[in-house]
C-alpha cells in the first residue's frame, strides 16, 4: 500500500485530465496521506526489535527465476522511508509557483509521486532481484524529471545521468545474475536472507562485490564517478535535485550497507582499504571543489560528494559506532542538504540566478531569509546541536580505531566545511547591498513552512540523537556481526 499509493496517485495525476486543474493540491494531499501512512508504520514499528525485518510481505513473483515480491523493513530502511515521506510534500510545496500550465504541472508532480513509490520500494525491498528492478526502473521517472523540467542544459544532464546509471546498473545486473548461480536456487533464490552467509570462492565473491559496489559508488556518488551530480544539480529543477541528492543518492550507501557488506562480507573486508581511500578522497575533493564553485547548485552538490565520502568512510570502518553514525548521517544529510537546496531555490526564484557573484548584502534586506540560510548552512558544516554533527562525530570517533590515518585526513573536511559555507554566506549576505538586491522579498510564509520543519527536525535529532539511534543500533549491530564473523574464520 505504501509503495503503490504514490505511484497510483501520480499516474492518475498524469493521465486523468480533470484532476490537473488542482494538481498541486492533489499532489500535496497524496503525499501527506503517504506521510500519514508512514507515520502509522513508524508508530507500530517495534523499536526493541529494530534489528529484525518487520512488516514482512512475501509473495511469489517470478518463481521460475527465483524472484519474490518480498518487502519489509528494519530500523535503517524505516528511517530512510520516513525521510522520503517527509521530504516529498515539502518539495512539492516548495515548487508551488513553478509552472503556469496545468498539464505541465500535473506531469511534473505525477512523476515526483511515481518516484516516491520507487524510493519507498527500494528501501523496503529484501529480494535482490526486486531491488535491482526497482533500482533500474526508477531511472525512468527521473530521466523525465531531469530532462523535461529544468534549465538550458537539462537534456545533456539527463543523458549524462542516464548513461552513468545504466552503466552502473548493467554491471550490477551481471553480478545479480552471477549471484543467482552462487545461491541456493529454488523459488526464493533471490531473497536477501537466502543469499546471506553463502560460502563462495574468494575471487567470485570479490568480483560480485565489485559489480554491486560499482553501481552504488556511482549512485552515492564517490569520486571519480561523481561528475553527473553537479551537472544534474545545476540543470534540473530544484525539487528534482533535492529529491535526488537528499534521498535517491542514499540508495547507493544503503546498498553498500545492506547488500555489499551483508552478502559479501569477506570481499568487503578485502576492499575496505581501497574504498576508504576513495571515501577520504571524496571528502577532500568534494570540499575543495565546493569552495571553488560559483554556481550554488553545483556548490551544494559538491558538498554532498564530501559528505557521502564521510558516510562511506563510516560504513567501511565496520565498527558499531561508525556504522550507526553513517546510517544516522544518511538521514541527517537528507534533511540538511535538502534544506540547503531548497534555500538556493528560493534565492533563484527571487533573482533568477544562482551565481554567488550576483548576490551581496542581503542580510539587511531579508533578515529572515539570511538567518534561515545561515542556520541551514551551519547544519551542513556540522554545528553541534544539530543532527549532522551528531552523526559526523559518531563516524569520526567510531571509525578512528579502524582507520586512523583516514580519519585524521578526513577530519580536515570539518575545516573545509566551515570555509565553503561561511565564505558563501559572506558573499551572499554581507557587505554593501547592490541596488538590484534592495527590493528582494523576505521568506514567505509558505517558504518558512517548507524549511523550518527541516530545521526543527535537525535540532530535535541533534539534541536527542537517541531518538534516531534507537532505530539504528540493532540493525547496525547485525551488520557488524556479519562482517566481523567473517574475520573470525
Amino acid at each position, binding site marked *: 500500500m505504501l509503495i503503490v499509493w504514490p505511484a497510483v496517485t501520480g499516474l492518475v495525476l498524469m493521465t486523468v485530465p480533470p484532476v490537473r486543474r488542482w494538481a498541486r493540491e492533489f499532489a500535496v494531499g497524496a503525499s501527506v496521506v503517504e506521510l500519514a501512512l508512514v507515520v502509522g508504520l513508524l508508530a507500530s514499528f517495534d523499536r526493541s526489535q529494530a534489528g529484525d525485518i518487520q512488516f514482512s510481505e512475501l509473495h511469489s513473483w517470478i518463481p521460475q527465476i527465483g524472484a519474490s515480491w518480498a518487502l519489509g523493513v528494519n530500523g535503517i530502511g524505516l528511517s530512510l522511508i520516513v525521510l522520503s515521506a517527509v521530504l516529498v510534500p515539502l518539495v512539492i510545496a516548495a515548487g508551488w509557483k513553478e509552472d503556469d500550465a496545468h498539464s505541465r504541472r500535473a506531469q511534473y508532480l505525477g512523476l515526483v509521486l511515481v518516484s516516491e513509490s520507487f524510493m519507498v520500494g527500494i528501501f523496503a525491498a529484501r529480494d535482490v532481484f526486486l531491488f535491482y528492478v526497482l533500482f533500474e526502473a526508477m531511472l525512468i521517472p527521473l530521466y*523525465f524529471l531531469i530532462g523535461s523540467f529544468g534549465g538550458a542544459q537539462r537534456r545533456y544532464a539527463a543523458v549524462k545521468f542516464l548513461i552513468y546509471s545504466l552503466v552502473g546498473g548493467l554491471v550490477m545486473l551481471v553480478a545479480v545474475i552471477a549471484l543467482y548461480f552462487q545461491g541456493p536456487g529454488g523459488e526464493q533464490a533471490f531473497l536477501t536472507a537466502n543469499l546471506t552467509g553463502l560460502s563462495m570462492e574468494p575471487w567470485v565473491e570479490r568480483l560480485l562485490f565489485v559489480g554491486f559496489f560499482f553501481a552504488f559508488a556511482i549512485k552515492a556518488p564517490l569520486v571519480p564517478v561523481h561528475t553527473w551530480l553537479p551537472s544534474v544539480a545545476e540543470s534540473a529543477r530544484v525539487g528534482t535535485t533535492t529529491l535526488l541528492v537528499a534521498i535517491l543518492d542514499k540508495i547507493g550507501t544503503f546498498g553498500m550497507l545492506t547488500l555489499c557488506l551483508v552478502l559479501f562480507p569477506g570481499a568487503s573486508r578485502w576492499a575496505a582499504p581501497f574504498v576508504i581511500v576513495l571515501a577520504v578522497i571524496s571528502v577532500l575533493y568534494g570540499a575543495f571543489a565546493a569552495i571553488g564553485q560559483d554556481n550554488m547548485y553545483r556548490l551544494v552538490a559538491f558538498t554532498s560528494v564530501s559528505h557521502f565520502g564521510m558516510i562511506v568512510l563510516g560504513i567501511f570502518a565496520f565498527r558499531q559506532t561508525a556504522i550507526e553514525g553513517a546510517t544516522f548521517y544518511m538521514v541527517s544529510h537528507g534533511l540538511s542538504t535538502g534544506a540547503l537546496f531548497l534555500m538556493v531555490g528560493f534565492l533563484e526564484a527571487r533573482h533568477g540566478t544562482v551565481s554567488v557573484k550576483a548576490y551581496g548584502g542581503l542580510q539587511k534586506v531579508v533578515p529572515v531569509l539570511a538567518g534561515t540560510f545561515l542556520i541551514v548552512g551551519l547544519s551542513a558544516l556540522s554545528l553541534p546541536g544539530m543532527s549532522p554533527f551528531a552523526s559526523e562525530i559518531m563516524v569520526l570517533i567510531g571509525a578512528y580505531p579502524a582507520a586512523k590515518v583516514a580519519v585524521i585526513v578526513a577530519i580536515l573536511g570539518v575545516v573545509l566545511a*566551515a570555509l565553503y559555507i561561511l565564505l558563501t554566506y559572506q558573499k551572499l549576505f554581507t557587505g554593501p547591498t547592490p541596488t538590484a538586491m534592495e527590493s528582494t522579498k523576505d521568506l514567505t510564509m509558505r517558504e518558512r513552512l517548507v524549511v523550518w520543519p527541516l530545521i526543527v527536525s535537525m535540532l530535535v535529532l541533534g539534541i536527542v540523537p537517541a531518538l534516531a539511534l534507537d532505530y539504528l543500533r540493532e540493525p547496525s549491530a547485525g551488520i557488524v556481526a556479519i562482517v566481523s564473523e567473517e574475520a573470525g574464520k
Partner: protein
Amino acid sequence: MLSVSWLLIALPLASFFGLMLAGRRADAWGHWVGVGVSAATALIGIVAFFEMIGRGASDRAESVRLFTWFSGGEFHLDAGLLLDPLSVTFVLLITVVGTLIHVYSVAYMAHDPRRRIFFAYLNLFIGAMLLLVTADSYLLLFVGWEGVGLASYLLIGFWNHKPEYATAANKAFIVNRIGDLGLILAMALMFAHFGSVSFADVFAGADGASTAALTAIGLMLLLAATGKSAQFPLQSWLGDAMAGPTPVSALIHAATMVTAGVYLVVRSGVIYEGAPDARLVVAIVGALTLVIGALIGSAKDDIKKALAASTMSQIGYMMLAAGLGPIGYVFAIFHLVTHGFFKAGMFLGAGSVMHGMDDQVNMRRFGALRSAMVITWATFGFGWLAILGVPPFSGFWSKDKIIEAAFIGEGWQPWVFGLTALIGAGITAFYMSRLFFMTFHGQKRWTDGQHPHESSLLMTVPMMILAAGSALLGAILGVGNRFQHWLEPVFGTHEHGEPVLAVPVLTTLTLVLVVAGVGLAYWMYLRKPVPIEPPPASLAVLAARNDLFQDSVNRAVFQIPGTHLTRTLVYADATLVDGAVNKQASGVAAFGESTRRFQSGRVRSYSLLMLLGFVVIAAILVVGG
C-alpha cells in the same frame, strides 16, 4: 539550586530563540529580557555557590544527569552537568561579568536598530558558555565550545555590512575550527582508549593508560585550547575580532570565551599529569604567547587591538601556569578570574571612550581625556593598576603567584619560564601605561569638532563595579589562600618545592621591572609629545605593528596554496574527470542517435508505456500472488 542547574543553560537559550522569533514588536523591550535572563542566571549561580559552600569540602561535586544523549551500541553517553568548585567559579565569573556587560550594552547599543538581535546573541553566548563549563563530558563541552564560537562569529560580524568585519568573523570561526579538530581527535583517542568521552570515565581510565596515549590526547587538547584562547600558533584571529561591538570584546574576547582553553587544560589535569611532555608544551606555548602578545601590545595604536594583544599575553600567563602542573592550576584560574574583572572593566572603559569620541579607536587621536571623563579615567585606572600587579590590586595577588610558581622546578625550566614571566611583567607595565597615558593624559590630539563627554550611568555603574573588583577581588580571594582552599576538592593539595629565587626577591624584582616599564612609558609618551602620524619605525616595531607577520605567514602557507589547489581542482574536475566521461559519452551518444532513427523517435512515450506496463504487471503480481 544545584539540581535545577540546567536552567543556567535553558533560560538563555530560550531567551535567544524567543528574541529571534519575536520579531520587531519586541524591539522596544527585548533588551531588558536579555538583561533579566542574564541576571537570573547570575542569581542561580550565586545561590548554587552558597549551597556548595554550605557543604563539606568532600561533598562539593554534584553530577546532574539530564537525559540519554547518545544511545549507540558502544557509544553510550548521557547529557549531564558537573557542578564542582571549578565549574561554579566559572559560572559566577560568566554570569556576574556577563550581567554587568548586558546592562552596559543597553546604553551602548541604544542607537542600533538591531539591538534586540544583539541581546539575543549575547544570551546565546551566555547559554553556550555556561554549557561549556558545566558539561560533564568532552562531547557536551564541545557543544558549548562551538556554541560560543558561533556566538562570537555572529557578534564579531554584527556589523557585517562592512566587508572587513564579515571577513574578521569568518576568520575567527575558521581559525577556531582548526583548533576544534584537536578536540575531535582527542575525543576519538579517548573513545579508542577508554571507550567513553565522559570526564568520569576518561579520568578513571587515565590512571592506567600509556604515556604515549595521554601525550597524544594532551597535545590534541592543547591544539583546541590554542584556537579558542588565541595562543600561538592560532592567535591571529583575536586582533581582527575587535571588529565586534566593544561589549562583545569585553565579555567574549577578554573575560570569558577566550579563557575557555585554560579551562580545558586545567579540567584535563589528570591527563596532563600522566603526560609530562604534553604539559611542557603547554607551558612553552603559554610563555611564547605571553611574550608575543606583550610585544604586539606595545606597538598597536588602536586601543582595542592593544587591549586584545594584552588579553592574549595575559592568557599566555594562565596557560604557562596551567603547564606547570598542579601547582599552577589554582593560580591559572585565580588569574583568569581577576583578569576577567579588570580586563572587562578596561574594555568597557575603552567603549566609553569610543562612545564619547565618535567611535574613534586611534590612541594617537586621544589624549587628555581625563578631564572630559573622570569616571572612565578612574575605573580604567583601577584596571591599569590591577594588570600592572601593583599591591594591593587584584593582579598583584594572581600574577605574582604565577611568576613565583614559574620559578619552581629543576634544571633549565624554572629559569626560562620564570624569567619570561618576569620580563613579561615589565613589558606589560610598559604597554599598559603607554595605552593609559596616550588615552587619558598628555595633550589633546582630537579631531576637530569632537566633544568628548562622560557616558550615562547605565554604562558607568557596571564599570565602577568591575573597577571595585579590580581593586579588591585579589585580596578577598588571596588572603589566607582562600581561593586555593576553595578549589582544593578539585585539584587536591600538592606539596611543592621553593622557587629557585626567594619569594621576597621575586616580589621586589617584579616591582622594579614594573616601575621601569611605567617609567619608560612615561618618558616616551608623556614627557615627549605623541605624534598623530605613527613615526617611521624599526623593523622590530613594524613587525609588532603587523602582529609579527602572522597574517602574511598564514597567507603564504595556507591561503595562497589553498586557493591554487581549489582552482586547479575545479578546472581538473571540469576538463579531466568530467571531460574523459564526456568523450566516451559522445561516442555512445552517436551510437544512440543512429539506433534512435530506427525506432519511432518517441523515446519518451515508449518508456512511459514501459513504466505503465511494469506497474500493471507488478500490481497484478501483488494482488494475484
